[in-house]
């Protein structure tokens, strides 16, 4: 994924953050922590409902109005196959740019900003195709496992037939 290959600009600020480090926004779904590179995140907002889109897969929660543009919201829990989230006001939408598109993903909470070294990124263990499809890698932080989300994979396959 090219986003990971990009030099992390935010990292320049801290002494530890050399070229080799990566800053992540970490968020949780249930007990599990996932992360995306901080440079792809555009905005974090509280869940405030979405207009459902017909004829799409269940992980497409619908669309919201983000200052005049229509942005689709993906339910990450449902994308991982754990059934739809029942969102409350405490749930969070992380708006990110994927390619030239903006998308939102619905998560339980945003927990932290993490700085990790690229060397610490492990490959996803072969075995389940869902894991390897949706994750770019796994990184350990404070002895927690953080799954690096592959955004392109998450937002693809949203249509019912495709």
């Amino acid at each position, binding site marked *: 994924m090219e986003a990971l290959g990009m030099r992390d600009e935010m990292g320049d600020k801290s002494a530890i953050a050399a070229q080799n480090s990566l800053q992540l926004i970490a968020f949780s779904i249930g007990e599990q922590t996932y992360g995306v590179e901080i440079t792809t995140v555009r905005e974090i907002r509280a869940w405030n409902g*979405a207009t459902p889109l017909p004829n799409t897969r269940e992980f497409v929660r619908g*669309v919201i*109005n983000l200052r005049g543009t229509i942005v689709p919201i993906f339910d990450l829990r449902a994308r991982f196959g754990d059934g739809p989230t029942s969102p409350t006001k405490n749930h969070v939408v992380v708006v990110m740019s994927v390619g030239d598109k903006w998308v939102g993903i619905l998560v339980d909470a945003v927990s932290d900003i993490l700085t990790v070294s690229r060397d610490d990124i492990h490959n996803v263990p072969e075995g389940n195709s869902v894991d390897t499809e949706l994750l770019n890698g796994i990184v350990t932080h404070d002895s927690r496992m953080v799954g690096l989300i592959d955004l392109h994979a998450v937002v693809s396959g949203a249509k019912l037939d495709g």
Partner: protein
Amino acid sequence: MSDLDDFKATYFDECSELLNELEEQFAAIEAGERDADRLNAVFRAIHSIKGGAGAFGFSAMVGFAHAYETLLDYVRDGRVELTDDVVVLCIRANDIIADHVNAAQTGEALAADYGMEEKNRFDALARGDKGEDDDVGGEHVEEFDIEFVPVMVQLGSDALDADEAAMALDAGDDSPVEDAFDAAPMQIESGHWEIKFTPHRALYARANDPLLLFRELAALGEMHVRAVIGEVPALADFEPFAVYCSWEITLVSATLNEAMIREVFEFVDGDCDIVVAQLGASATLDDGADAAIAAADAVAPVAANGADDLLALADEEIADLLDFDKEEAPQPSLAATAQDSFEEPPALSFAELAESMAPPPVVKTPPKPVVLAAATPSDSEESSGRAVGVQSIRVDLDKVDRVVNMVGELVITQSMLTQQMDETLRVRYTELVRGLEVLAQTTRGLQDSVMAIRAQPVKSVFSRMPRLVRELATKTDKKIKLETIGENTEIDKTVIEQLSDPLTHMIRNSADHGIETPDVRTARGKNETGTIRLSAEQAGGNILIIVEDDGGGINRERVLQVARDKGVVAPDANPTEEQIDQLIFAPGFSTASEVSDLSGRGVGMDVVLSNIKKIGGSVHVRSWTGKGTRMTLRLPLTLAVLDVMLVRVGGSPYVVPLSSIVETIQCSRASFERVPSGGQVLQVRGEYVQVIDLVERFDLVADTAQENRFVVLCEAEGSHKVALVVDDIIGQQQVVIKSLEENFQSVEGVAGGTILGDGNVALIVDVQGLKTSIIQKSAA
């Protein structure tokens, strides 16, 4: 350099307009309207393109355009007959010019010999009538344009004396300029400009007329023109095509800069020497006046002496011509010299001169020459050149779009305000209500006016089609005629831009699959030449673009077979004839048995459908076996704002375009009937209409009892109706269409989204899409 880029951009804009004009004119010429006006228009267009190309140094284009222009000139004065072959050649030439323009615009290089074949044919045609074809042109003086012959002598004698006179006076020479520079400052005013204009021979060869330039300059401010005729040789040495004259111009205006002056000479750039200098402290009026008078003086005696000389020569013909003093210019530069020195100084500086200078009568004596200057080409240039500029302005489209968007938002805010007015408010604040009503009217008017700015005749797209049809006819060996109707119908510019590709595809399809080969047509008892009719008309809030051919119609068996083979329809599905026709728009569908160069490259008509859907339109096809096919594009008048009915389906807001709604009926009053497939039909005034329950269709849960729900009767394509069942009708409003594809992808049954007054997103129901997707749904 950005200035030059601006000019270039303007030039390319103009080129595309001119090229469209060419297409139009030749469409008429091809149809048999071969009158002089059309040829003149063609000539003007080519000439303008060439002029600009010269200014920007697109030499290949200039060369080609020049040869073309020469041929046109010959056609115009009848030396070359405008046969069908010539018309075809000209049309081909237009295409080549278009390619040249394109290449220049994109900075690509065309092959060096591109268009050479045509160019040679021009030359051959031109020479075939023994004409000389370009600027070198010395040996065919008699044939080169208008009668030059006798006048030379007269002018020559003029020149002879002018020479002497100039020497005697020492004023017509360049000394005035130096004087002007050296002169003690008498009026210290900014905005005095001294321009030295020395045309080269090429300037006249390109049929430019200095007089026109001077007129344009005169429009910029107060102007004095002095002709420098010191170089005019004695008659014996006089060379008819040489340039002997230059001009010095003083221009006085408070609001003038060098760029404005340069702009006047933009199109003769490179064909003349121009020195522009601002005289911060000199170039007084008196100096200018001096020089002008001097020039006029120099000329006046010439006129008199010239007459003597001529009498001495005693050539009847010459005398005849001299009497009128208005014969055709023997050589444009000299004609212009004479005119300008006669005409311009008195015209412009005479009033001021009168007070300070003594002998005005001398200046008056020369008879006012009739403005003839250069021959025909410049006449036409004059008429076209003069017409430009006053009636319209060029505005960056972005600026217009910004206005359109803001007006769109304004309209929505306004309709939101109106919705907020409930009964109690209405009673209490009558003034407010009245104000809102006025606001509503004004915004509506504003919106219409803004839309009118963006509206353009579909002509700009239609005019590209004749070329396409010609190419298609050649490649397929068919005889095809294109008819266009209603090309002045106006549509939003964005829609027009999006229209070109789909139309190209549709016409390709008609030419490739629809129209039969001539022998098949003859066998079927049809006219050997097939007809594709392209028409545009307005129908309510929509524009209908119809592509109709009189070919073989859609081969339904084959279409269905292919559709089944490719899995577009289920093997057991039994679509109606009309549904089969629509199948050609299904993704991945292409019936061409051989992949031809034209259509059937795998990307079939589904491209048309997706393009049209993108701009909120729909496509419908109707076919009659053996008689032809008609494809109808239904397009919205405008993209910016849509009148919709807001409905609720399963707790979510949806909007249905008002333009497609026929009526609404409460379910309790509607009479539904069952059909074997398990679906429902609705009986409306003796007509059975297919029912689509949006809750079912969109897989939602109805939140309203059946009898309280509503039927929205919509008109889909081809005046076929479909009844949508919704939970509730909320109201009517205007919305701005937002794309779902911008951040997501297209969704079946949804034409887009919109943002409501409360900030929520509502989805736009794609009525046509719902109807056509039914057979595919049953197939799945």
